[in-house]
């Protein structure tokens, strides 16, 4: 595998509108790659194609050396995603959100427990473990989404606007903590 992400001429059209209009880039192992642009520039659309959420209109996209259109299932297993919107399960507690998510990756129960413990401590939310996520502040929800993105110990971590709503104390950790 030469690159973690190898994107060639990615395109995504929504009807007449060209949301992504021919973007090519590579990301190497160990690299932190930042995608910047104004609102509506095509950032989220681009990264949604990388984690197999949104099919591309055309282009060539290899992740971990595999074709995303064919091997999306095994690729998704190795990716952690922190979406722009907080997509936590409102019916579950903080702790359950992590444990249940771990089960989606077929992580055994005991291992799921120990990872949940580690991640709760990583985002300093042990004391909120039994709270419903609906009772959390926006910033704490964000921290939980980041923790959840790490539950499968991903080889590629995709963060869409990860620092939105985080206080300055949380931000350095977010960038360097893992």
């Amino acid at each position, binding site marked *: 595998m030469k690159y973690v992400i190898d994107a060639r001429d990615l395109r995504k059209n929504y009807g007449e509108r060209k949301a992504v*209009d021919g973007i090519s880039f590579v990301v190497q192992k160990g690299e932190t790659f930042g995608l*910047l642009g104004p*609102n509506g*520039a095509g950032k989220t659309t*681009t990264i949604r194609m990388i984690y197999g959420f949104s099919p591309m209109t055309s282009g060539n996209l290899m992740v971990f050396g595999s074709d995303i259109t064919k091997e999306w299932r095994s690729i998704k297993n190795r990716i952690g995603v922190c979406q722009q919107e907080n997509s936590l399960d409102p019916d579950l507690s903080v702790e359950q959100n992590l444990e249940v998510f771990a089960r989606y990756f077929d992580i055994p129960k005991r291992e799921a427990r120990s990872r949940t413990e580690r991640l709760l401590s990583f985002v300093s939310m042990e004391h909120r473990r039994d709270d419903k996520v609906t009772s959390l502040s926006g910033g704490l929800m964000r921290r939980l989404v980041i923790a959840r993105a790490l539950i499968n110990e991903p080889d590629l971590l995709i963060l869409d606007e990860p620092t939105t709503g985080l206080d300055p104390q949380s931000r350095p950790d977010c960038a360097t903590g893992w």
Partner: protein
Amino acid sequence: MIVDHGRILVEGKPADLIRQHVGREVIEVNEPSKVLIRWVASQKLEHEDLGHRLIIYCEKGESLFHTISSTYCTEGCDLRLATLEDVFLKLTGRGLRE
């Protein structure tokens, strides 16, 4: 990498992009006078006139900053290091989108 309208504008390491597109330092002047704006233009300094704010891009801003702050500046001005945000705003403009 900075994108806009679904296309790549620039790609590179943050420090390189800052150096290539804005230089090392930035002087920001609040409520700049017409005299200052004319002077900056006459000195052929790279700048952006935003009406209530004047932004001057430079390599070594210190002596220029002293000249501006002592001679032309009434409403406050700052000398700071250029950041990726300067590159972003310079390349993608300052208007709101959508």
